[in-house]
């Protein structure tokens, strides 16, 4: 779709567009100095009280929780911003319930945009899924909606808006839902637990870099923030004793950023992901977590000292054509000389096999090797961006980074909006794209889906693909069979990669599947599938 790029007032405060901060030494691309995103600049404004830290809310079967989305102020690194929060808390309340519980949430929208709540990863009744335009109308400012949430799976889930997530989730509307198994031995014994939600904000000296009111900006790569937060704070800290085993429950609520989490050498093992534990625990040296994914990780701190929880990636500069190490400290863990009070070293050292998960997967194994029922290709169509930008991108795609850990071309990314960029899920068999796709599957069926991320597209990048209301296994990656499986609801598909998923289509209703990079979702990367009863 062709568009005109008009020069907009640059600099200053308020709701005028501002070029995002550029990495040191990077010059602006020719032809971009007089353009800005072709969307109205937007930042929330209004009466707002200071946000407070998130609290834990334990609910029993049948309980009701009132959740509201409201404006808050937050002071981060000495600067104060007007943002959003659930119940004034950042992160939103951590809702904690037992497996097979039903609770009610009365949601009231007190922000300046229409909203909803999506219960990410929960296989709940379709009518409460929160998908605006599919399962409900948007909750307009001042209105309310009742969600009845039944949780059948134990694990770590989260909740967030499902309309203009790039703005609302990006500005703080997210929280965890933790579902505890009634089995006291569900997880290993540990000395401590920590629930951490990651997200990032893009700011400059004048404040938050504005969003797009009538469409997402940063539509090519998504909005990568330059302030990395854990539970809404720029520096997380935990004190432990030497020998302690700590269970970290991570959620990535960032718009676009995938993390490579490192604990400065503490021993780590993966215990669970989105919807289940792994068949067998997996020792790792770091944890890659894409937007919307959750990982439960156990760490043993054997040595005294202070260890950084860091995001350590190989950042690429499209400007210089080079890589460099980008290491951001998200927090610290201080290990005292005092010994742990209860030594769980033996349990930590054992890579526990979980027969319950394997048994659950067993009835699906006969479907592992059958041909795919559906094939999706991930690609993009870009029209109407400045010619210089298009020419650079055409040359850029001689090479693709399997995962874009950073924004290597911030000025080019910023000017692209969902008006010029259309991210695409394409059904290879029918040729249908995005919301023209409507797969039908019978409840109780097992559906194999092949996803290929097209490396030949105009700007290939990794996509975290999320299916609502169901769970899936990742069977194969580029023809290599995965081991130590676990049920997921979101999978990061790197560029040039083909992944086979096995969907347990058990939950009736009309559901969405989409890329969970918030700007890509706004730029069209979503489809419908129906599980017929």
């Amino acid at each position: 779709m062709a568009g005109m790029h008009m020069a907009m007032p640059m600099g200053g405060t308020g709701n005028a567009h501002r070029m995002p901060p550029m990495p040191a030494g990077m010059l602006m691309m020719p032809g971009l100095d007089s353009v800005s995103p072709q969307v109205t600049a937007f930042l929330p404004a209004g009466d707002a009280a200071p946000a407070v830290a998130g609290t834990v809310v334990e609910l029993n079967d049948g309980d009701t929780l009132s959740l509201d989305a409201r404006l808050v102020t937050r002071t981060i690194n000495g600067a104060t911003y007007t943002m959003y929060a659930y119940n004034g808390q950042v992160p939103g309340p951590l809702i904690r319930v037992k497996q097979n519980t039903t609770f009610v949430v009365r949601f009231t929208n007190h922000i300046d945009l229409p909203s909803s709540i999506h219960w990410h990863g929960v296989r709940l009744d379709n009518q409460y899924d929160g998908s605006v335009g599919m399962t409900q109308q948007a909750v307009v400012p001042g209105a309310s909606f009742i969600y009845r949430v039944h949780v059948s799976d134990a694990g770590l889930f989260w909740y967030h808006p499902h309309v203009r997530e790039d703005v609302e989730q990006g500005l703080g509307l997210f929280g965890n839902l933790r579902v505890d198994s009634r089995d006291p031995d569900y997880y290993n014994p540990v000395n401590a637990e920590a629930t951490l939600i990651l997200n990032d904000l893009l700011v400059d000296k004048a404040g938050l870099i504005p969003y797009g009111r009538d469409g997402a900006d940063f539509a090519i790569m998504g909005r990568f923030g330059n302030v990395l937060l854990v539970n809404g704070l720029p520096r997380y800290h935990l004190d432990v004793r030497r020998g302690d085993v700590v269970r970290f429950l991570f959620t990535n609520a960032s718009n676009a950023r995938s993390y490579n989490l490192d604990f400065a050498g503490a021993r780590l093992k993966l215990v669970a992901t989105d919807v289940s534990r792994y068949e067998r625990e997996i020792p790792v040296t770091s944890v890659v977590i894409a937007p919307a994914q959750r990982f439960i990780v156990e760490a043993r701190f054997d040595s005294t000292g202070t260890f950084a929880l860091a995001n350590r990636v190989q950042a690429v500069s499209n400007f210089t054509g080079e890589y460099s190490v980008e290491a951001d400290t998200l927090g610290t863990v201080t290990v005292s000389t005092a010994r742990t009070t209860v030594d769980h070293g033996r349990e930590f050292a054992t890579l526990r096999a979980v027969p319950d998960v394997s048994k659950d997967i067993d009835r699906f194994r006969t479907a592992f090797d059958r041909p795919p029922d559906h094939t999706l290709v991930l690609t993009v169509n870009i029209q109407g961006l400045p010619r210089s930008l298009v020419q650079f991108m055409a040359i850029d795609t001689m090479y693709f980074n399997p995962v874009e850990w950073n924004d290597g071309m911030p000025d080019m990314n910023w000017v692209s909006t969902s008006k010029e960029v259309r991210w695409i899920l394409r059904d290879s068999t029918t040729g249908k794209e995005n919301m023209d796709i409507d797969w039908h599957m019978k409840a109780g069926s097992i559906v194999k889906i092949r996803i290929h991320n097209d490396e030949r597209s105009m700007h290939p990048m990794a996509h975290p693909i999320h299916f609502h209301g169901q769970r899936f296994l990742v069977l194969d990656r580029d023809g290599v069979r995965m081991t130590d499986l676990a049920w997921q609801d979101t999978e990061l598909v790197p560029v040039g990669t083909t992944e086979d998923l096995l969907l347990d289509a058990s939950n009736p209703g009309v559901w969405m599947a989409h890329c969970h990079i918030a700007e890509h979702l706004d730029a069209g990367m979503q489809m419908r599938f129906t599980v017929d009863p």
Partner: protein
Amino acid sequence: MPVTRDGHIVYDVAVAVQGLPSPDAFNGATGYVAWATVPDLSLAVSLGRLSSDGTAHGQVAWNKFIVLVTAERTAGPRWTGPILLKGSSPSTWMQRFQAHVTGNAGNPDF
């Protein structure tokens, strides 16, 4: 996905070669070996001797790398024999936008 602690993506490298003559044509070499090395050649790993079907496999965790096939008499940590084939990771093709900005005096109408 396989990523190292410092953020390097771990690549499975598969080499498949056809049409090479017998290795003894190269100063008495006994076989062909595939290697991966970084662009400045400071680091190198062997991907293994090519098997009878001309293939070799290995893993590298580098951002940019070059793949070489050489004719060798004996196994060693680096190649000593002649380099017969060379390939490079797609990441070595990355264009430098900097060259456009400074090379064309910032002219938007290039």
